């Protein structure tokens, strides 16, 4: 028994979309397969890996743990909203400069996590960044370069570039 579809209005990346959806369709699926915004990836569908992280009303949220019908009054932002045209944002550039991605599958989730986190915590240092970054899984990088990229972006936005990996000392 499929449930009845209902009309849902979703505001994604500044555009309103009218969609006829089953209530059980999760937001990540709707973004990817109904709206064609395939930059958001799906890695676990139970809210642990964070590959599907998007901004909902400016906050980082697992889009696999939200039914699209629940997002009706919200403003959703996906990785496709970062940058203008081919121009990469400072955060994206920092990921590139620090080699913060290898296969790139988890990357959109980390970018949106970092974007949401830095909006809320612009003064975050490397330790806070590491804790925030621990929300998502990456299987390729070992995280160090992701932490560096986000911490570097935070520092640059504060006007003090150059924060990178610290050598441990006994």
């Amino acid at each position, binding site marked *: 028994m*499929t449930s009845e579809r209902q009309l849902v209005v979703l505001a994604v990346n500044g555009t309103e979309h009218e969609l006829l959806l089953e209530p059980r369709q999760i937001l990540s699926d709707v973004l990817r397969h109904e709206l064609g915004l395939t930059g958001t990836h799906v890695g676990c569908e139970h809210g642990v*890996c964070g590959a599907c992280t998007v901004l909902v009303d400016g906050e980082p949220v697992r889009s696999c743990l939200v039914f699209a019908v629940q997002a009706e009054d919200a403003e959703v932002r996906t990785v496709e909203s970062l940058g203008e045209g081919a121009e990469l944002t400072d955060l994206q550039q920092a990921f*590139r400069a620090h*080699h913060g991605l*290898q*296969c*790139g599958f988890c990357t959109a989730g980390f970018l949106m996590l970092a974007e949401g986190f830095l909006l809320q915590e612009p003064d975050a240092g490397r330790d806070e960044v590491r*804790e925030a970054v621990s929300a998502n899984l990456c299987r390729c990088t070992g995280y160090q370069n992701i932490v560096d990229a986000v911490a570097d972006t935070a520092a640059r936005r504060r006007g003090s570039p150059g924060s990178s990996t610290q050598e441990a000392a006994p």
Partner: protein
Amino acid sequence: MSGEPARDARFDGGRGRWVGASVPRREDPRLLSGRGRFVDDVHLTGMLHAGFVRATVAHAHLTGVDLEATRAVPGVVAAFDAADLDLGDVVALLDRPPEEFTPTTMPVLARDKIRFVGEPVAVVVARDPYAVEDGIEATVVSTDPLPAVVSEQTALAADAPAVHDEAPGNVLLDVTMFDTPGVDEAFAAAAADGIVVDLVTHSARQNALPLETRGVVAAWDDHDDQLHVQICTQVPHQVRTVIAHSMRVPERTVRVTVPDMGGGFGQKCVVGREEIAVAALARRLDAPVKWIEDRREALTAGFLAREQRYRSRAAFDTDGHITALDVDIACDMGAYSCYPFTAGIEPLMAAAEMPSVYRVPAYRVRARALTTNKAPSAPYRGVSRPQYVLAIERVMEHAARLLDLDPVEIRRRNVITEFPWTGINAVTYDPGSYLESLELAETIMRDEGWTALRERALGEGRFVGIGYCCFSERTGYGSEAFAKRKMQVVPGFDISEIRMDTTGAVVVTSGTMNHGQSHETTLAQIVAEKLGIDIAQVKLRQGDTERIAYGWGTFASRSATIGGSAVSLAAGRLGELLCRIAAHLLETRPENVALDGEGGVVQLDDPTQRISFADIADVAYLRAHLLPKEVEPTLSATASFDVPGDGTFSNATHAAVVELDPGTGRVEFLRYACVEDCGVVIHPQVVEGQARGGIAQGIAGALYEQVTYADNGEPSAASFIDYLVPTATEVPDISVDHLETPCATTENGAKGAGEGGTIGAPATVLNAVNDALRHTGVELDDTPVHPQTVLAALDDAATSREEATA
């Protein structure tokens, strides 16, 4: 080889501009902006979705699959069981006698028997993935359960049920190798004057866990008279072979392409049964069909790896020199043999290379592949090397303790220092920096003060340990090396074709298959360097069986070594062709021109005479009447490369400092240092990234990840709640120092760099934990190390100390 034209300096435009530079990755802009194209991003008109009904019992006779209710579910289009689909089985073979290897087959869908929880029993096709799940739920599977085989003990028990009728003892491979003279004598001598170490090491079953699960989209194309299979695989040509075989169609009618891929780590270098079923469905239903593995399937029914047990006996003389090694290895390969590597992949690798970086004078090994009612195994980053390195490194540590030797010192006394070294295992090791890496790691530990901290810590009530691991890794297995393993399908070479267009830009193919390793950048660097053109002028093509004549894909750290050599050779040949045409156009002798490193050919005795590639290309294609008589139109070249002999060995030493929390048993990293040598580094940032990512996976194996099975064969980890993938708070920062011993046999001097991190980390971490526990008398030899085990060791030591002082 300097006489060969491709290595003639005149045809090498390299000025050191590209190779060795951390150029911005060319794949990044699309991946950073959500414009990558992964397999689940592919959407075809009229596309249907497939999903698999999976076994919920581990071992049973399959007595019935009722798909009537399934087919009645709204949205469901079709449902099939094994008999409906009637596909050929997947068969992976070794050329070994029956007493060594027992062939088994893997059906695409389970036919008469179920062999693990998660095994596909039927396939459901529906209009959307939600209806697929409804259909799966409506399916009724009837079984007649059998006792489950879930461990070495249950597999080898006298009355054990047989997972495969062909293998009544549940052993798929059983080899005894080397058995060189003097093993028993050395043990007898060591017993009298020396020491004998005898220990058992275990490593847990792990999931390689690419963040992108497996997936496939298949569609029949009438125009091409061909089934187009888009799939995330490391081995597109092998997928084509198996699909064609299983569907009983010519290979020409199957085209396999690979879009962007979200990791693989070995799990995707074997051919899965689901992708074969989906390909067949697309033909049968005459509609595009997509299957995307979900995480529960990936954790329970995907290919797993690493569950191994070693009993290692080693003899040492009183000076700490190893005199003999005698090892028994059992690898729990699960329910099926994987294509093309077979269930022999892990035990054969382990047996062949167990002596590692040490001068072992006498060696005997027995290695077995067991079959059990667990998800089958595939190669996973490092393939047995994390395990045999763990075993041999634990041997060194145990011996060092018995002999009261420093852990670095015992390694120093045994490590291979003369190259090429032909070991007792009949493998020839090309030059490396084994001792140098060990000593640099030791220097880092000492100069940064970690050695002093370790000494101080106990007195301060802290539990700090330093662990080392020195190892090498055969990379770039050529055909000769794989043939030694007696695989019936022998991988090894790579072919590259390069074409220059009328503007002087080139497209180069590679039979390797990027899935995160940065090939689009690094292989382009090699070509740009060779031809002396800007990297932006080079486009790499991979992962298309129509565009690449044949390829073995990417595994075993072969891409930079073998694939990189092939593109380099092809580029060199193109450079030679460009020079020949240029000499003709400049009206000089061919010996009097050379690539100029700036995208042109220069006349050696008169550098003012130069002609650009674009001008040469203009002639080659658009004014072919100007070409020299012996040159055909078009600017293209093809080259193949195979690594001769035993391949080339990368090496590294890792050193880690850990501190144990005496209240929880948690292992905290204070420092992790990697000193590695992968020959000539093409892209330092990429090599460091591979090392760090590999080490993170090794730490995962050392401390966190484990799939266990209940007695009934039920797997423990069906979600990320139970399968503990380390996050940024569990993985430390890692320093990477490079040593460079150029490889003599690859075109660029590079050795493989993809797997080393994963190989060295488990032993490093385990040795560090044991060092921190040295006051307790406890020695841990299994991974992962659970904090409750650590805490119990600390507590028991504290209790006995209290009792001693009471």
